[in-house]
């Protein structure tokens, strides 16, 4: 064993193999990038309003309580399919109204219940956030989550 596997052989296998896997990975990433843009997220236009909504989402650090497509903190519900849950996936006005009503009622102050903070959000931002969540919901996520509960 020690004659076949010398230190320099082990090193060469390490460098050579790593380069090979990096090349394969980069090629697959390029293909995935195209797939995302052309197929999996093409169901709804990536409008300025959706972009704005993503910034609103980020500015308030929603990801550190909620999950989105299963990624984030696990303290609050999944939001990748929240518009499906609310039956508002195809209805921008309804999506805005439910989201606005929900967020303005926070924090609930109920003892022993997890509290969502109150966020200072304008109507324009709230509409953008609703559009962003609708946009995220139409992504082809290989049928994840298993059910509407998220």
């Amino acid at each position: 064993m020690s004659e076949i596997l010398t230190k320099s052989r082990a090193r060469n296998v390490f460098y050579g193999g790593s380069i090979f896997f990096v090349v394969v990975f980069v090629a697959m990433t390029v293909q995935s990038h195209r797939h995302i843009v052309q197929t999996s997220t093409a169901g709804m236009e990536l409008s300025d309003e959706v972009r704005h909504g993503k910034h609103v989402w980020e500015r308030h650090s929603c990801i550190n309580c909620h999950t989105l497509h299963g990624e984030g903190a696990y303290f609050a519900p999944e939001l990748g399919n929240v518009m499906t849950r609310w039956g508002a996936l195809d209805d921008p006005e309804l999506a805005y109204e439910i989201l606005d009503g929900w967020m303005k009622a926070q924090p609930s102050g109920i003892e022993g219940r997890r509290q969502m903070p109150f966020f200072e959000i304008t109507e324009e931002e709230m509409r953008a956030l609703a559009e962003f969540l609708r946009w995220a919901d139409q992504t082809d996520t290989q049928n994840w989550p298993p059910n509407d509960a998220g």
Partner: protein
Amino acid sequence: MKYQSQKVAYAYFVTAMALFGIQVLGGLLLGWIYVSPNTLSELLPFNIVRMIHTNALIVWLLLGFFGAAYYLVPEESEREIFSVKLAYIQLAILVVGTLGAVGSYLVGIHGGREFLEQPLWVKFGILVAAVIFLVNVSLTFLAGRKTAITNILMMGLWLLCLLWVFAFINPDNLSLDKMYWWFVVHLWVEATWELVMAAILGFLMLKLTGVDREVIEKWLYVIVATALFSGILGTGHHFYWIGTPGYWQWVGSIFSTFEVVPFFAMMSFAFIMVWKGRKNHPNKAALLWSLGSSTVAFFGAGVWGFLHTLHGVNFYTHGTQITAAHGHLAFYGAYVALNLAMFSYAMPVLRNRAPYNQVLNMASFWLMTGGMSFMTFTLTFAGTIQTHMQRIVGEYFMDVQDQLDLFYLMRFGSGVAVVLGALLFIYSMLVVRREVVKPGPMAVPGE
């Protein structure tokens, strides 16, 4: 300490331990918010505390790696660090950046990509610090003796700094955002950080066991080869449900299954080296942390990772407390314990004294390791119930969470043990100046 400039590692390790304290206290508060959700809910909401908890962890682990590099590169390269001054400037930038980030989180200024919430100026500060670091250690490395340990360490550090560039790339398309986000997050902890871990572990084995360098270095190359061969395409296990193509389910499942291999190899490597080594090194605490790190990394990253990495399983467990269980034990075993092993080994040398307080230090190992293990078990049970109730039965998130109170209470208890262990560790490193428990007479070989 063979080289005067190794002393900079001391400042890095002390800063890292201070942040470690902040990190675990933040974690304790989060654990308490799970138990009693109204705690500070308007003054200091969960999302803010969580940013402090995760960011403090990442920064102190990096400070530990930087300090470890400043400690071991001179010894391996057989020369002083290129510039001690640059090393201190780098540390100052990182400290200002960290305090700036924590301060801005507290007043509500932050980004919204998980773990990369730092304001832009802090991100640039980290970039500048990384460049200073790379210049400093690379010039030291290039001028001196090159060993497998420094080759692998340098490769890991260069790649992790280069990948930081993806922290600046935030596409408007959420799925693209997520895909490139993993270039930092996954390719750090499941690829480049593993190189750093293997290099530091190799260095510790070399010092603590007295096994021949040729043997250690050969196996190091084998270990890091298995790490990158599995870890690079293993990124696929994050590409199942974010809008990326379906073939990642197979690529991710197969390659991330092999991600167990480097962790098993590191554990076997550490135990075999200790078994083969004839050196009776006085620093038993460093040895305990080294063996403990590789073992807990195998369970936390390897076994608990495999537990939910196959796409058929992950379809149901993705984004539940199962993920939290794995995340906690993996980070603790692979990176926290490894850094503490390095601190335990290097601090006495840096302070030019015998390795005191080993009993306290070893007690802190068992407190923290016991606490983290129990935390992992409680979260695994919570996650199993959550997976069944929410993903199979279809009950709503909060209805399920309300049924998990007992597990969150036990998790808080285990968190208390971890915090006590962490404080005990810091105390044993920095405060006590003599051996608290007297060692027995010289050991006589048994019958």
